[in-house]
């Protein structure tokens, strides 16, 4: 087991494309760290640099107490799981598992013991003599895991290992991965673009954008205290609703105003977050989590009210997502633009909603709300997020004092935030 220290690492591809820019990160021994971000953010490049498959342009990578910059992948004592599994098609499962050990001249008996152990852990015992082509996707994924396990390396590197599985299998494999890490407690770096995977698996999650590290923290802290609009928008599902708003303090009290709405803010909240003070009378970007909404009749008077007309409702059984339109132009901050991979595929801008923002609210499953209804939503204004409209940085939601590791506390919930 080993600590991994990335110190100011850079990756510039021939032709000048800078994939990773001055990234520093300390990964503790036995920690499960997830690198997450939209596609093209450099997360896989970072992983491949740790593996030694990609040369490092600048900075140093240390695993354990050795600087690894110029050490060959095989001498780094790492094992990697690839998105497409990269099983050797011409070998049986047993040979696949044993290959790395045989290359290292491990004694035959030892190889056999480890292969059988790993096969038992992963439920592959009856498939040992099969070729990968004769396995299902989930089984291949487990063989790929097994190939890493038998090596008993200092570090596991995983590059989107679950993204080729169907949704149901992905959830169960996610649970097995968490359990496996619990059991083996090997330092793990895990790359994914799926923020639910990131939140559920990681002791800590690193959010990357354009090769630059945005924030590293526990999943709950990322959710509660995003450093900027990008992280706020990326973490959480459904994602945060954002709008250009104005903070006001007048005869009626303190409030945040956008479109036709005025949400009062309790002085307690302002008091707890003195950084907000300078922004009164100025523009801010307001963020509201879908989970901070509820149908007005179900909550007490302290929640602000927002009358809306529902456009679509999505009943998920345990909860209902209410989608409605707010008559304010969508925020065009660069942080938000980077967040919308759908925009490239032409799915983002529905002309129907042009010039307006589409919001999601999560309400109780017992709500009677239907599409087209005019309803009143309650908003928990204690949990508003404010961002500076220029820099996109969070205002007055203090970072957790220290980016601490919480070992398992946040792992039980499948999705972040209150249900």
């Amino acid at each position, binding site marked *: 087991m080993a600590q991994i220290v990335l110190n100011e690492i850079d990756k510039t591809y021939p032709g000048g494309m800078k994939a990773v820019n001055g990234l520093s990160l300390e990964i503790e021994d036995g920690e499960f760290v997830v690198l997450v971000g939209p596609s093209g953010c450099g997360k896989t490049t970072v992983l*491949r640099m740790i593996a*030694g498959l990609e040369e490092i342009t600048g900075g140093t990578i240390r695993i354990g107490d050795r600087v690894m910059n110029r050490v060959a992948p095989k001498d780094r004592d790492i094992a990697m799981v*690839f998105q*497409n599994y990269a*099983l050797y*098609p011409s070998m049986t499962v047993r040979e696949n598992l044993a290959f790395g050990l045989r*290359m290292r001249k491990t004694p035959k008996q030892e190889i056999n013991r480890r292969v059988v152990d790993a096969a038992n852990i992963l439920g592959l015992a009856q498939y040992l003599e099969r*070729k990968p082509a004769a396995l299902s996707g989930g089984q291949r994924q487990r063989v790929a895991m097994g190939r890493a396990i038998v090596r008993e390396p200092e570090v596991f590197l995983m590059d989107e290992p679950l993204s*080729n599985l169907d949704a149901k299998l992905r959830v169960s494999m996610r649970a097995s991965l968490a359990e496996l890490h619990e059991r083996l407690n090997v330092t793990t770096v895990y790359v994914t673009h799926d923020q639910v995977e990131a939140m559920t698996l990681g002791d800590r999650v690193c959010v990357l954008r354009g090769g630059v590290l945005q924030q590293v923290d526990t999943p709950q802290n990322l959710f509660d205290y995003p450093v900027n609009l990008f992280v706020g928008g990326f973490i959480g599902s459904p994602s945060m609703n954002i709008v250009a708003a104005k903070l006001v303090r007048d005869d009626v009290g303190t409030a945040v105003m956008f479109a036709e709405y005025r949400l009062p803010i309790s002085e307690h909240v302002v008091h707890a977050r003195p950084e907000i003070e300078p922004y009164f009378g100025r523009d801010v970007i307001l963020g509201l989590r879908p989970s901070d909404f509820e149908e007005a009749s179900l909550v007490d008077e302290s929640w602000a009210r927002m009358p809306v007309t529902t456009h679509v409702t999505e009943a998920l059984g345990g909860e209902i997502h209410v989608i409605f339109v707010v008559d304010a132009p969508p925020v065009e901050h660069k942080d938000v633009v980077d967040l919308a991979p759908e925009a490239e595929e032409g799915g983002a801008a529905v002309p129907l909603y042009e010039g307006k923002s589409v919001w999601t609210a999560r309400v109780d499953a017992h709500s009677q709300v239907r599409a087209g209804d005019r309803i009143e939503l309650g908003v928990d204004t204690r949990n508003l997020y404010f961002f500076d409209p220029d820099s996109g940085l969070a205002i007055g939601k203090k970072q957790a004092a220290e980016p601490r590791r919480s070992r398992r506390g946040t792992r039980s919930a499948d999705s972040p935030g209150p249900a």
Partner: protein
Amino acid sequence: MTQTGRTVDEVAVAPDDVTSVEPRTSHSWWRLTVLGIGALVFVFPFYYMIIGSLQKNQNTSLSGVVPQPGNITLRNYGEINAALNLGKTLINSGVFTGGVLLATVVFGVLAGYALAQLRFRGRGLLFVSMLLLLMVPFQLLIIPLYVLIVRYYGLGDSYLGMIAPFAINSTAVFIFRQYFLQLPKELFDAARIDGANEFRILTRIALPLVRPALLTAMLLTFIGPWNEYLWPFLITKQQSMQPLAVALANYMNTVQSTVSNPFGTILAGAVVLAVPAVALFLAFQRYFVAPNIGSAVKG
């Protein structure tokens, strides 16, 4: 199948049925005729070679096309064997072809793998100059090669001298490079992390995946050295070293007047030369269709 219970789809896949759909049928008749004529044109010389090799007396008239029972004999084969020592020349052809094949595959695989998978300075330049070399016709190189191999290396009348100029085949290098480029990159990454060196990766992982393609390349390469005439002819003075193609050509120029049916004897030699190639083709027919190197990677 009756006329009534037939659907449009079934008709479409049964174009040889004359009664059902007139336009389609006539169209396919045309196609069949044209293809048939084409096949005949290609098969005829081959057929005539076999017929000719069996004639007791040469019959160049049109009636010679049809085998005549009275005019059939195997004597031509005996005569060509007596004149050339077919066994020895076939062995020479075999050694020459086998050597070229072996060298082509070994060097082609090694160089192709390096060009596809290894990162080294000058790789692009090397690849481009290799492609450039492909453009130089062999005829241009013959004289310098002859001087080099016979005068300097003293390899005249030796198998090595015959094989050497063909040992590295840049077409094969190119083809093998393409094969290796098609394999998923992660396989190589995984093997490198697993601790395999490049030679192990090549032999244990890459080669098993391109094996069908490899066989195709070998079969296609086979015919070249097997039929090669000019180079072995230049480099062999002793008849005992000559491959069959060369010996046969020499025979045509010199000794043919001594046998009863020289024409038939030459054709008998040609049949012997053609049989291994045809046999290989028949045995490995399916490999001449481009193989699918399906990668058992993801689901």
